[in-house]
């Protein structure tokens, strides 16, 4: 399958819209489009096969399933993996497992785009500072809303469109070359990568003892074959009951402490 110029540009647009901060309900809209699960279907639609897009997108989503982007520098870009990755995988006609292996390095490239726009946007902040000194709100709004979008659009959509248009042939050849053990090795790597997102996420919520719950979730899923939704519900209920008990114990201490304060006051 080859990708036409129009298709390549549309896919570039999808990538742009999935960058944090495009004027969708920021983060809610853009992070949804950023997901390979979602972008995959749309790319598939653009390429004329939404069903295949859904399958490839769902596969590419896997290594990013627990990806968490908090503040600073993201380690990889699910948005690029989901758009360019899906497009090239569909063009090369590879299996979902191979699509994962292709999408992961593509995701890493995406961080370049992130660094660029996060740097260029600094200029606009300074422009807004000046607008503030002038008390010119219109100008401030213009520099916040319009300018960065143009930059991000150029920085995002163009490389992706080019990648789609010129990349598909190259990638098909590469995939050809990798048949057999090399591709299998890429699949092994693809199987390990979700560990990063999960571990980063775990680090973010890490508290003493939290690993026990993690292992519990793991054991329940492995040995009982439970999917994520029932485990989430069970865990939510048990967590509530458990923390409620802890809160009950601590209430007592607070009650105790305050009553002692009272004693002190009386003496």
């Amino acid at each position, binding site marked *: 399958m080859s990708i036409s110029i129009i298709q390549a540009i549309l896919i570039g647009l999808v990538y742009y819209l999935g960058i944090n901060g495009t*004027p969708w309900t*920021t*983060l*809610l809209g853009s*992070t949804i489009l950023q997901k390979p*699960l979602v972008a995959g*279907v749309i790319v*598939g639609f653009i390429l004329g096969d939404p*069903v*295949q897009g859904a*399958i490839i*997108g769902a596969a590419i989503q896997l290594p990013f*399933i*627990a990806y968490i982007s908090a*503040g600073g520098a993201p*380690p990889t870009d699910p948005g690029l993996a989901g758009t360019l990755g899906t497009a090239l995988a569909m063009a090369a006609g590879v299996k979902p497992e191979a699509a994962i292996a292709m999408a992961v390095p593509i995701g*890493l490239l995406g961080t370049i785009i992130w660094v660029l726009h*996060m740097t*260029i946007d600094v200029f*606009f*902040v300074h422009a*807004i*500072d000046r607008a503030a000194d002038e*008390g010119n*709100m219109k100008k*401030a709004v213009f520099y*916040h*809303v319009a300018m*960065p979008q143009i930059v991000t659009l150029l920085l995002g959509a163009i490389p992706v469109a080019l990648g789609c248009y010129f990349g598909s042939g190259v990638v098909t050849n590469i995939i050809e070359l990798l048949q057999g053990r090399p591709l*299998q090795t890429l699949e*092994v*790597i*693809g*199987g*390990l990568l*979700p*560990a*990063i997102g999960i*571990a*980063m*996420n775990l680090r*973010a919520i890490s508290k003493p003892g939290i690993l026990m*719950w*993690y*292992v519990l979730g*793991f054991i*329940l*899923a492995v040995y009982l074959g439970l*999917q*994520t939704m029932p*485990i*989430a519900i*069970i*865990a939510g209920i*048990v*967590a*509530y009951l458990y*923390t409620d008990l*802890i809160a009950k114990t*601590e209430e007592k201490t607070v009650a105790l402490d305050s009553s002692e304060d009272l004693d002190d006051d009386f003496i």
Partner: protein
Amino acid sequence: MEEQRVKLSKKDVLRAFWKWTFFSHSNYNYERLQASGVLQSMSHIPEKLYPGDKEEQKKFMQRHMSFYNTEPHFGGIINGMVLAMEEERANGASIDDDAINSIKTGLMGPIAGIGDTLWQGTLQPIALAVGISIAAGGNVIGALVFALIMIGVMLPIGYFMYMKGYTTGKTGVEAILSGGKMKQIIQAASIMGATVLGSLTANYVTAKSTMNISVGSSTLALQTDILDKLLLGGVPLGITLLTLYLLKNKKMKSTTVMLILVIIGLICGATGILG
């Protein structure tokens, strides 16, 4: 009590909420992150609070260009609060720049932590897992289901938080944050999140050995005959815990850790230890 001269209408507050919701990250940058997002979300406010008073309007604009970064949905409670403080200030309350600024910088961190845990750490992986399970078989509805879950949960939260911040004001928000209930919610969400991450590890991290061991005449499959008897999925679990160890205890950067995993995968894949 002094009579109130200027008052923000319900519509003013709503507009600020929506602008914040749509444009908070529009000019996200390394220097001050969401700073200009805060200002732009309140771009219609100075004229309301200080009609015609150019000087105060300028000060307002300068005041809100300071470094700001929080999780936008939960963090809306801060923005709402700031709006309420600005209103009081315009009505003569003695709230100086420092007060407003320290509220913003003091709360943005903790609330980002709470928000990211609840949203990206807990809700999003669950919704993704549901979406993937639908989509993997070629069902285009999967993406839609994911999107609807996210919007259906997060938009109401964002709205509620912003309005709560505006109506409760400074002391109210601090009371909420320091109360035992909030602590319990975070704790419970962390537990739920960790458990869900365990199930994600089980379902999505894959590493199976294809090695065989020969003992005398008989051949044993390392994975099914030994490792699976010890602990099903022990290898993926071990790899994820190793990753956590490198990230957390060894304080490695996530890209470094990714590189290490790629190398492990390369070696184990090429030699056929995993496959």
